[in-house]
């Protein structure tokens, strides 16, 4: 039976009608056309569907939309402000940390949570922070460097 829920996504409020068995990922992609969150394994292993719910990195493919009533959700679409990319997004471009791009939204959101909790992480902490995001192209090195560069900006600022 469909239920009406309210989702707060990237600062905007959406009211929509969902079935209990719809995942947040499917609602984002199919109902709201927010296709930045990717469907990889769809079983909670690859991290491509990572979004931030109430400051926690969350697998949207393993989250029922109906359980997100009134929760603050951030997807990759919510990172740039007034046409300006988030520092992590810019750093990903600057360090060539994007190849096919499928894992990128997921690891950028994982890194955002990491830096909010720990603005100056070590390389090991960065690795742990993105360990739930699988990349099959660049091999993590450039991803680490992109995140560490933002962390270093935190040190100098």
């Amino acid at each position, binding site marked *: *039976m469909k*239920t009406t829920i309210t989702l707060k996504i990237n600062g905007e409020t959406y009211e929509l009608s969902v*079935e*209990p*068995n*719809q*995942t947040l990922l499917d609602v984002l992609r199919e109902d709201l056309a927010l296709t930045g969150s990717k469907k990889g394994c*769809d*079983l*909670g*292993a690859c*991290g491509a569907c*990572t979004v931030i719910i109430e400051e*926690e*990195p*969350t*697998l949207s493919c*393993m*989250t*029922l939309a*109906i*359980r997100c009533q009134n929760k603050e959700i951030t997807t990759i679409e919510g990172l740039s402000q007034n046409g300006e990319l988030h520092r992590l997004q810019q750093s990903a471009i600057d360090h060539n940390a994007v190849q096919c791009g499928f894992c990128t939204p997921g690891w950028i959101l*994982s890194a955002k949570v990491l830096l909010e909790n720990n603005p100056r992480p070590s390389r090991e902490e960065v690795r*742990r*922070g*993105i*360990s*739930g995001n*699988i990349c099959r192209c660049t091999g993590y090195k450039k991803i680490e460097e992109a995140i560490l560069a933002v962390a270093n900006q935190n040190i100098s600022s």
Partner: protein
Amino acid sequence: MKLPKFDYAKPNSISECCKLLEEHGAMALPIAGGTDLMMAMKNWLKTPKILVDLCGIPNLNQITDLENDGLRIGAMVTLRHLAQNPVVREKYPVLANAALAVGSTQVQAMGTIGGNLCQDNCCLYYNRSPMFRQAMGPCYKLDGDRCHAVKGSKHCWATYSGDLAPVLLALKASVRISDPQGETSIPAEQLYSGDGKQPHTLQFGRVITEIQVPAPPVNCGNAYLKMRVRKTIDYPLLGVAANVVMENDDMAIHDIVLALTAVEKAPLMIKAADELKGQILTDELLDGLAEAAYKQARPISNTYGYTPNYRKNMVRTYVKSAVRQSLERATGQGGVT
């Protein structure tokens, strides 16, 4: 992957929750973090008619430090919050380590301590897609008549693979369980039946509300070591938890508990550890304990990674390391003479 259809209920109190679960019996399942359950439902291994959400019940996500009376952890505390909690990090670091050993950062942020204890047993032949299972024919865990993992076996061998249970068993934790009539408290060990098909003893209408961990005695040390293929997103191939309490005035062991995971149908307590009480640990005694654990461990191919034979062989090594580390922490020095 399309989830099966189900109804959804979000009760506001524990009594309402227990009533709903009892009323619907086998048709209902409680959902906490959902990481284990969603995977099973996406593979159509579980097709409940109604999901009862525990996240609307107040006060299940609190951690309370009762000083000498130990720690009370609400069943809905996420593994990430458990690992970040200052009291846990200072006084129960082994619990934080075990929480950080589970799955990935995202799984830790979603998964709860209560849900982790209730994680279903897994097996390479059970946790598969419907198409794969259809080709193989139903096994015992799917009400079939065979075990694909252990050919010719008369029962299900799906393995218990939780990371927190061995640690909580070693710390002698209890779990508080609510039912429609009231609540009870049982030792964590009694949560597990030892049956691969039906691994938990919780009956319909009962949910775990709290985990109670006794305060760490003086001169105690503990460790949890997890063997895994990657450093993330995987089940343990072997997990060893040890907790050692030393005598106050000499180097003898006052108490020792050793619990293993991923090598049996339930978390495995190594009773031979009792024989070390009152003794000063020597290499010979430690070898004997490692040998006893090796004999009790019965890993099967329940997940990807090394062979069951290799995992069984590694029991000796991991037990010795876990006990040595615990002893070092208990005495503040190298403990084996």
